[in-house]
């Protein structure tokens, strides 16, 4: 089978859609644009599913091991240093094919949902063009064959998410949020780029296949170069991996760089479902998974991944318990779940159990994409109905929006990890991986699981139970909004039964699914406790939550204010960076650089002022000068030159 054409079509269709809608959309296709974008995404989705089918069941497995297939590779830029070159190509291997399916399915659902959600908005063709651009970038990212190509698409993803978050550009908060998202992720990408360069220079290649092959062989030239070079007591390998991980952490909203994610909720809700649930935010996880065998070589990098992931998971879960903006709760829960994926990768050490963490992480990525986009789209439907993001404005919606209610409930159960919904299976695997590797992480994760159940059901009860509020009554939504909810709900129920470890594992070998029923007792009990607590506190409108908040005192307040991370960043940027560096730099720029430029201008002007009298317009003065000049020239020529 010719994968090149296949995979190329998967990339080219969204690009074509972007170009067509971007250029002609608003003029000629204002009505057709949603259909056009959705149709092209449906084609991509079909192609991706077919590619997955071919890869997993027909071609991919050679002797029981899934082989990476390079569908296409062309040299693009050659450095002439250590045979270093940047190639552009398409790589199909278990995780990229899995990501293709996830991205195209979620993107299709979002395209469908947007048809109803964005109805009546301005610039719908532009919106669809941006969605297509984003899909293109994300698909290109997962199909990249080398680090540099991934970086190119990584930045494209950043740029298109900037466009989508700031889609309502007349809203100042949306503009600020899009800038924040772009700058924070861009800041992280700087480290990513440095990491890529270290990796490329030391190992002599950007190519994933070559990198993995070279670095996992301790005798190879690249490994020796990586291990021998160092800086500040750490080897080049550690530096490269940690820097690359910082890039991934920025995109995935891990702990110190997470501040953009909650604000990014200013974008249209379907966009949040696409970008902040299933695709862009898991790019960091995907990146680490892509380089997983290399990360395995370095214990320190693995520790960093583990602890950043685990702390983000817990931290975000705590904040999510206090937020009242429905989308922000979902944003923090996303951050928390991505933390799960991260530390799951981190605890995947070497040996027999290594595969478990990796598989669990990818499995959670897979299931999370469906139930989180379901939750976001459900939230979108609710927001569409209520015209508010604040869940204190909501209540009793279960009678008014039955379908949304059911699907949202399924999503909540899935994310909480209640059997037999999708999240249960993947989360169990993660917990198992943590248990086998690091007990402390395991307990943190367990506690976070309980918190997850609590805040998700807090959200659920506050929206769908409690007392009725006054709403402008209209119908629940169009078919195009209901259909994705229904499909995603089905996927959220069924995705957990996919025998995932058969397909995706660290070494490409199919492994048996480990399911220990005894082991599941503790998490499930905790989850049910969390749900029960949420129900007790929030099922009816009462003053218990307020009392609880008061009894927690400053801790609650801190969590409510997101532990002052934004303030900390503002302090660092405004008080320290801007004041200490920005102001002097601005002063130097204004006074010294501009001063030099202005001085040259002023000098010219002054010189012109001084000599402009020479051009007096007085003929006789000219004549005098002319005469003297002629005479002097003649004198010079005759007496000094021609002698």
């Amino acid at each position: 089978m010719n994968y090149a054409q296949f995979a190329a079509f998967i990339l080219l269709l969204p690009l074509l859609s972007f170009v067509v809608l971007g250029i002609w959309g608003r003029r000629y296709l204002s009505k057709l644009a949603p259909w056009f974008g959705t149709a092209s995404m449906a084609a991509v989705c079909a192609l991706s599913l077919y590619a997955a089918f071919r890869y997993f069941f027909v071609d991919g497995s050679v002797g029981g091991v899934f082989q990476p297939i390079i569908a296409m590779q062309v040299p693009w830029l050659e450095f002439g240093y250590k045979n270093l070159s940047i190639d552009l190509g398409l790589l199909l291997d278990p995780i990229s094919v899995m990501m293709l399916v996830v991205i195209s399915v979620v993107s299709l659902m979002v395209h469908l949902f947007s048809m109803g959600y964005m109805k009546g908005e301005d610039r719908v063709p532009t919106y669809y063009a941006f969605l297509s651009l984003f899909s293109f970038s994300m698909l290109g990212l997962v199909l990249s064959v080398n680090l540099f190509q991934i970086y190119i698409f990584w930045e494209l993803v950043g740029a298109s998410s900037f466009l989508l978050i700031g889609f309502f550009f007349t809203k100042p908060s949306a503009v600020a949020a899009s800038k924040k998202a772009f700058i924070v992720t861009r800041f992280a990408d700087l480290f990513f780029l440095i990491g890529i360069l270290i990796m490329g220079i030391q190992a002599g290649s950007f190519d994933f296949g070559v990198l993995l092959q070279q670095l996992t062989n301790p005798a190879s030239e690249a490994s020796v170069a990586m291990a021998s070079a160092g800086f500040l007591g750490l080897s080049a390998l550690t530096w490269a991996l940690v820097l690359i991980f910082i890039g991934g952490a920025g995109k995935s909203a891990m702990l110190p760089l997470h501040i953009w994610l909650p604000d990014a909720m200013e974008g249209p809700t379907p966009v949040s479902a696409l970008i902040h649930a299933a695709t862009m935010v898991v790019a960091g996880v995907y990146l680490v998974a892509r380089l997983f065998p290399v990360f395995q070589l370095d214990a320190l990098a693995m520790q960093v991944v583990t602890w950043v992931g685990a702390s983000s998971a817990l931290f975000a879960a705590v904040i999510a318990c206090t937020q009242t903006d429905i989308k922000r709760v979902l944003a923090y829960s996303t951050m928390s779940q991505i933390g799960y994926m991260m530390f799951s990768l981190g605890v995947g050490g070497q040996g027999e159990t290594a595969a478990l963490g990796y598989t669990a992480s990818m499995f959670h990525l897979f299931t999370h994409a469906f139930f989180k986009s379901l939750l976001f789209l459900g939230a979108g439907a609710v927001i569409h109905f209520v015209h508010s993001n604040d869940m204190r404005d909501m209540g009793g919606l279960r009678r008014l929006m039955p379908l949304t209610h059911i699907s949202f409930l399924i999503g909540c159960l899935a994310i909480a990890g209640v059997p037999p919904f999708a999240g249960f299976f993947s989360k169990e695997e993660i917990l198992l991986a943590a248990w086998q590797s690091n007990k402390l992480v395991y307990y943190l994760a367990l506690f976070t699981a309980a918190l997850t159940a609590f805040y998700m059901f807090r959200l659920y009860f506050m929206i769908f139970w409690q007392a009725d509020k006054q709403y402008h009554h209209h119908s629940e939504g169009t078919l195009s909004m209901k259909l994705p909810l229904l499909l995603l709900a089905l996927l959220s129920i069924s995705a957990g039964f996919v025998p995932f470890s058969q397909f995706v594992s660290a070494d490409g070998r199919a492994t048996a699914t480990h399911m220990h029923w005894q082991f599941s007792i503790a998490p499930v009990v905790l989850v049910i406790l969390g749900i029960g607590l949420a129900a007790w506190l929030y099922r009816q409108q009462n003053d218990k939550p307020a009392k609880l908040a008061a009894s927690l005192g400053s801790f609650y307040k801190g969590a409510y204010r997101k532990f002052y991370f934004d303030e900390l960043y503002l302090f660092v940027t405004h008080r320290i960076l801007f004041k200490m560096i920005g102001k002097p730099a601005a002063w130097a720029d204004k006074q010294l650089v501009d001063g030099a430029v202005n001085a040259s201008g002023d000098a010219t002007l002054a010189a012109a002022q001084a000599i402009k009298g020479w051009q007096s317009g007085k003929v006789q003065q000219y004549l005098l000068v002319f005469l003297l000049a002629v005479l002097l020239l003649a004198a010079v020529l005759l007496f000094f030159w021609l002698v």
Partner: protein
Amino acid sequence: MVPVSHMLFFSTALFFIGVYGLLTRRNMIALLMSIELMLNSVNINFVVFNKYLWPGQLDGVFFSIFIIAIAAAEAAVAIAIVINLYRSHLSVDVDDAAELKY
């Protein structure tokens, strides 16, 4: 016999008297007169060179004849311009016609 150089001294003096007038006069008609003086000194030179140095030829004589003809034409055109300028500016001072200054 007067030396050729004395005749040339004479024409030089005449020329620079014309130059002095050209530099100091402000009336355009006066400037024109200075120019006539300078042309005359050039004519004298041509004639002197022709007569005393290359008597076999007539180029100097012809040059001075043409210069005289051209000077007449030039004077006519210049005076037409001056009169026109006088009509529009009510002045024949060179420095008054300064619209194109700067």
